[in-house]
């Protein structure tokens, strides 16, 4: 599943992520704010997800995968 949170200001991306991670085991999140990027990465890691990040210009991509899968 891919979640597009570009252009959305904090904390909304984080709420979207929090709700999505309740059901998803693997997720790609698109962001364009450094603020949201840091918050979301931090949150996903605390929830027990392995996070890989990519940065392309002003856009960020986070790949999250549950560690216990």
């Amino acid at each position, binding site marked *: 599943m891919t979640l597009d949170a570009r252009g*959305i*200001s904090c*904390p909304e991306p*984080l709420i979207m992520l929090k709700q999505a991670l309740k059901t998803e085991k693997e997720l790609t999140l698109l962001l364009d704010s450094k603020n949201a990027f840091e918050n979301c990465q*931090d949150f996903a890691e605390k929830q027990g997800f392995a996070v890989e990040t990519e940065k392309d210009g002003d856009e960020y991509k986070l790949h999250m995968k549950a560690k216990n899968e």
Partner: protein
Amino acid sequence: MIGAFIFIGCPTTMLLRLARGDLNALVGLFGFAGGVVAGMFALNKGFSLGRAYTTKKSDGFVFPAIGILLLVALVFFPAILNFSEQGFASFHAPIIVSLIGGMLVGGIAFVSRICTVAVIRDSIFFKSFGMLAMFGVLMLVLVGYNLIFGHFSLGMESAPFAHTDGIWNFLGLALVGFVSVLIGGCPFRQLVLAGSGNSDSAITVIGMMVGAVVAHNFSIASSGAGVTDNAPIAFVIATVVAVAIALYNIISNKKERSK
């Protein structure tokens, strides 16, 4: 702004007052936290400001340009401006000190993204405590300064520019907290963002100025003597409007999604 005028100060002022030992500000802090929790509830229910888009670079300069024009007016044509002669707002530092201090604080605030709403939101809902630590250090420094220079006095009655009406201190900042979460940041953060070229925040700051005019024109602003007769009426109207906007937004977002 109505809420802040009833309390006498924005959330940042609340922290400054608290650091001087003003316990009325502590009541305000509880109200503010309550408002933030209520706002988060609305966000969880689907409140959303929607997607922002990058606009022309020139749009970002509008608000800072207004600030520079006001500065020019202050330095060269002070006669066209009106100044507060009594109360909280009549106290100010010399212009040059204000300017340097403001640039320093603004720069630090921009880089650290410090925000009185974010600290409560992140601590309670996302268990992220980085900003809380930042505020902890800030409060320690402020309390230390006030203790050393003799500005600290613990209590409710002795605080300058404060009223002791607990209910209105609580409710005033609760309204500020609720609205601040919905717009994505506290009044101070909005000002910093507006200065950095965010047009949404620039509109918010202009709204705050209008709110200040309304609060003073209609005798809504509290003073050391207490809240005014008009304050409760203004509070109810402002709260109803804020909740109505939140509900309308949540309902229309739900409709949008179910399409």
